């Protein structure tokens, strides 16, 4: 009788052991999935940030073309760009709120593909992820009244 009780006790303990092993496995699995989901959410948030920053950068009032107070969409004034590329790097803290850790570069593609301006350069030395967004944009020279084809390249960094 005593032996039977011992066997039953052993059986109960074995069942409990398996039960706890299953629970631990479940917790490990759930944690891994949660970690994966957090990674996915982080990636999505970063993508949304990249979109937001590229839209902000392409519509900065400091750069926009305007004629008699009417703003032209998708256009950068070259004279404003030249001035802004000197002033913005001196005021990076002010622009950090809207442009975060990013690098904004504007390059002329046609007709002269050798001209380039770095508008904002607040990068991270060590980063885990970088998203690059290229936006075709018109570069208007108000002196010659000519439009060039340019590309605004926005690189967003994250730790």
């Amino acid at each position, binding site marked *: 009788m005593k032996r039977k009780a011992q066997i039953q006790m052993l059986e109960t303990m074995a069942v409990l052991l398996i039960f706890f092993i299953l629970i631990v496995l479940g917790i490990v699995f759930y944690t891994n999935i949660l970690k*994966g*989901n957090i990674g996915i*959410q982080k990636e999505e948030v970063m*993508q949304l940030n990249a*979109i937001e920053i590229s839209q902000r950068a392409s519509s900065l009032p400091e750069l926009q073309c305007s004629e008699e107070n009417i703003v032209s969409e*998708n256009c950068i004034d070259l004279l404003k760009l030249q001035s802004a590329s000197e002033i913005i790097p001196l005021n990076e803290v002010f622009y950090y709120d809207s442009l975060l850790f990013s690098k904004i570069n504007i390059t002329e593609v*046609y007709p002269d593909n050798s001209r380039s301006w770095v508008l904002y350069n607040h990068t991270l030395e060590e980063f885990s992820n970088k998203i690059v967004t290229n936006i075709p944009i018109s570069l208007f020279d108000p002196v010659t009244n*000519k*439009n060039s084809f340019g590309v605004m390249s926005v690189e967003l960094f994250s730790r």
Partner: protein
Amino acid sequence: MRLQKKSQTEIIGLAIVVILLVIGMAFVIRFMIDKEPVDYKKQFTQAEIASNMINTLLKTTSQDCSGLSMTELLQDCAQSQGIFCQNGEGSCIYAQNTAQTIFTNTLELWKIDYEFKVFKQEENLIFTLGSRCPASKKSKTFPIPTSSGTLFIKLDVCG
């Protein structure tokens, strides 16, 4: 009678284990299916590129064609074809070569497949660049009025 009751209890225990396993599997499958992150950036970039590329291209001033814009060159190409640029090329060839230069230095460099079409009606194609998108695409069409009807500029960004 006592033996029958015990076996009934064991069957109930087994049923509970099976139900727990099914619920667990449902969770696993649900989390595995929802794994892929939404590619917001790709969706935005495709739409933005299709629109901005045509918009910027049409505004661009030619390098050596009497300071005419691409819109004016394409209009002449669809109408009289009377304009000849400084390099001796007609408006159609000049516009096509300029568009090709721009696409080579932008979309092709970024490894984005595209199809650029200039046409009066679908059957009256003036020129085309790139290759047909095999699957999904983001499209943008710009109509340009000419004396001989409406000219359409269409860009499909594949992906």
